[in-house]
């Protein structure tokens, strides 16, 4: 079980790296969905491991919101604004992937230095969530189109969830639910903004 949890957490990081290495938005949304699924499975493992009933519910919520509803909204928005790939990245693909790798190295150093407290599966989870957080932030900075920035934002959110779930054996359920709902609202609003921008400036395309 611990090994499986490890595998899922590492796959969260890998999907974040893949996201940095792909210029395609659709693929990015699919990867986000996959990442959330891994997060959900990880939560399930933690739940099984620590036998916390609140985490089972959290698992269900993650599946519902992050794996299904938010990607669905994003796809829907994408269909309405018709952009397929981002052409202007602020940083080339190999460079940003290498940057993501160095961020992983960095977060590993930080994790080794900082973490002394007990975390569910060792400081590994902290490394991974920190690295995912940083890669998400990098995505938000280096991408020029709004869509990828949203994906970066969602990646950051996943990283925080991961950290939260492992630090305290799960956040209080109410907080978690609130955060999820907040996230959903944020995505909805951003989708509306995208569509609005698209309508108001058909020619110039989507630049934030």
């Amino acid at each position: 079980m611990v090994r499986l949890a490890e595998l899922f957490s590492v796959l969260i990081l890998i999907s974040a790296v893949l996201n940095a290495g792909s210029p395609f938005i659709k693929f990015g949304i699919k990867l986000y969905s996959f990442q959330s699924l891994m997060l959900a499975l990880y939560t399930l493992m933690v739940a099984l491991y620590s036998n916390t009933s609140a985490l089972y519910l959290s698992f269900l919520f993650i599946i519902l919101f992050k794996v299904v509803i938010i990607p669905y909204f994003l796809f829907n928005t994408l269909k309405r604004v018709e952009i397929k790939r981002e052409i202007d990245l602020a940083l080339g693909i190999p460079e940003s992937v290498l940057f993501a790798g160095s961020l992983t190295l960095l977060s590993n150093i930080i994790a080794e230095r900082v973490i002394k407290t007990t975390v569910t599966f060792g400081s590994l989870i902290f490394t991974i969530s920190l690295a995912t957080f940083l890669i998400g932030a990098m995505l938000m900075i280096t991408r020029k189109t709004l869509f990828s920035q949203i994906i970066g934002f969602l990646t950051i959110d996943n990283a925080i969830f991961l950290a939260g779930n492992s630090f305290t054996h799960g956040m209080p359920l109410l907080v978690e639910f609130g955060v999820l709902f907040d996230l959903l609202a944020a995505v909805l609003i951003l989708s509306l903004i995208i569509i609005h921008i698209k309508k108001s400036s058909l020619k110039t395309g989507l630049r934030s």
Partner: protein
Amino acid sequence: MDISLNYEKLLLGILQFIIIIALAPFFAGLIHKLKQNFRGQKGINMFQFYFNFGKLLRKGVVLSDEASYISIISPYIILSVYLIVLGMMPAFYIYSLFSRLSDIIVIVYTLGAGVFFLTLYSLDQGSPFGGLGGEREWFFTMLSEPSLIFIFITLAIYSRKGMLVSIFDFIQKNALGGHFSIAIPFILLISLFILGLSENARIPIDNPETHLELTMIHEAIILEASGKYLGIFEYSSYIKLSIFLTLMSLIIFPYIAYTPIDIPLALGLYIFKMAMFCFMISIVESLNPKMRLFRAPNLLSIAFIISLIAMILSIRGV
């Protein structure tokens, strides 16, 4: 593990060596056949590549006027370099023929020697296409060699052994117990799969079936080869494919025989695992178009970073 040899081990090592050499064209043919089936074609005979090799051996050689001694020796050197690497693999029996040589760095650099002579061959006939292929070959080798070394070193750190044979010995023995991570082999496999596609001239990096001189890589290098030399090159490429597939099959689920009694089961599993990877490769090749040449660094950089992450995790002792 004990790598001292006795006659039984040597004999079985030679047997294993011969079997995996003999099987190499079969796997290449299987991938081809599966790909054709996915396209809705009837497809070649699975053993077609054996017939091709035989046919090429029977044909005479046409050598370019410009060719020097490099054209005559390099096919043999490339073949023996790949053979010796294949001979290091504990495919289904642990005491492989060259198990003593199977240091990880030696493997990577010996493979590099193959590329070196392949590119020298490509320049030897003074044909523009050969050089084109040679240039691209180095381009991809350069991008994939750091990842390959990282993968091997990760394996070494993970098992605290320096030789391939001991590494897989360790993984097999500890697979079912002890502190053992499945995350590291899994992500190593992703990285190795990408490298396998790139090193073996497969879609999405290269298209092995094209006739277009201007886009191909491996085929462009051996464009001037004919007769038995072409046959040797073809066979070398099957062996290289076998090397990568064997590595993957060992990482994902090592089942290696230690005694002669276990060999039939291990051999059966080996063929099954190899066929599985052939299936996966043919699926990937069917679902993807060939990439643009200068988009390939994107894919290979991902492979590199994934192996880097695996290395960090293995150093932490996950």
